[in-house]
């Protein structure tokens, strides 16, 4: 039985013809997999091969260690083989704790508060505004 491709698209096939068509396609694809090593990709991401992941893809998290701990008298627990010294901790309502590694901000960095203070002072200085000269004589030790 010869089937035209258009019939497949427009659904002009009856049930028997459709089953036959599907069987033929499955046979052909199975043969191709066996003989040629060719596979059909239904994911829609055929250009992303698993062998060579792209940089934008997030690497899946894996469980490196799995253990139970008991909190001590002061309700502290120890982290084994923790790779960072500082963590951001979130205590969740269900009793879970979520820890994210952090690093200390560089001591040379200016804090947000000081930067805000600097912004205001500079804005006023540009307008020619500053306090009256201060008198240090009262505080300078002899």
């Amino acid at each position, binding site marked *: 039985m010869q089937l035209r491709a258009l019939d497949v698209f427009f659904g002009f096939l009856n049930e028997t013809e459709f089953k036959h068509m599907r069987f033929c396609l499955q046979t052909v694809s199975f043969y191709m997999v066996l003989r040629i090593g060719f596979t059909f990709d239904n994911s829609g991401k055929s250009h992303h091969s698993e062998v060579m992941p792209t*940089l934008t893809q997030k690497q899946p998290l894996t469980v490196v260690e799995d253990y139970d701990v008991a909190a001590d008298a002061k309700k502290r627990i120890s982290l084994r083989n923790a790779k*960072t010294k*500082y963590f*951001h901790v979130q205590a969740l309502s269900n009793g879970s704790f979520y820890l*994210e*590694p*952090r*690093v*200390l*901000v560089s*001591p040379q960095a*200016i*804090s*947000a*508060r*000081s*930067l805000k*203070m*600097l912004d*205001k*002072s*500079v804005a*006023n*200085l540009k307008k*020619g*505004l*500053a*306090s*009256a*000269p*201060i008198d*240090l004589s*009262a*505080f*300078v030790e002899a």
Partner: protein
Amino acid sequence: MAFNIRMGLPEMEALWNNLSIRKQQGHLDKDEEKFFKKLVKSLGYLAENPRHNSLASHEIDDLTRKYGFKIFQSYLENNTPSAGRMFWAYGPDKRDITVLAIEPHPEDQKRGAYQRIKLSALPSVKTRSEEKRER
């Protein structure tokens, strides 16, 4: 004195007024007393000679670029990790120096400040191709 020292408006002026008045009244606590002593000493040096060795004054290029005029940084103490610093600029008039800000901010030094310490996220790990590109 070679320079007039002025305080930036409004926060630095408010801070100076608060500290100086409380100092005269003898109401500064131990830490504030220490800080005020350092500040007065540094301001004294700054008024005499902004390039005094103890101040280790230097221009901060990033801030200069940001604000469009020269911003300098001087230290309030020596041989101290994370030493206190003050930021200043020349102006508004000739022979004037305006202290714009101090670091750490006085609020940061109060009790409970440890809880407000900010930590940053870990820097992103560079891939091999990025490292090669940088080379």
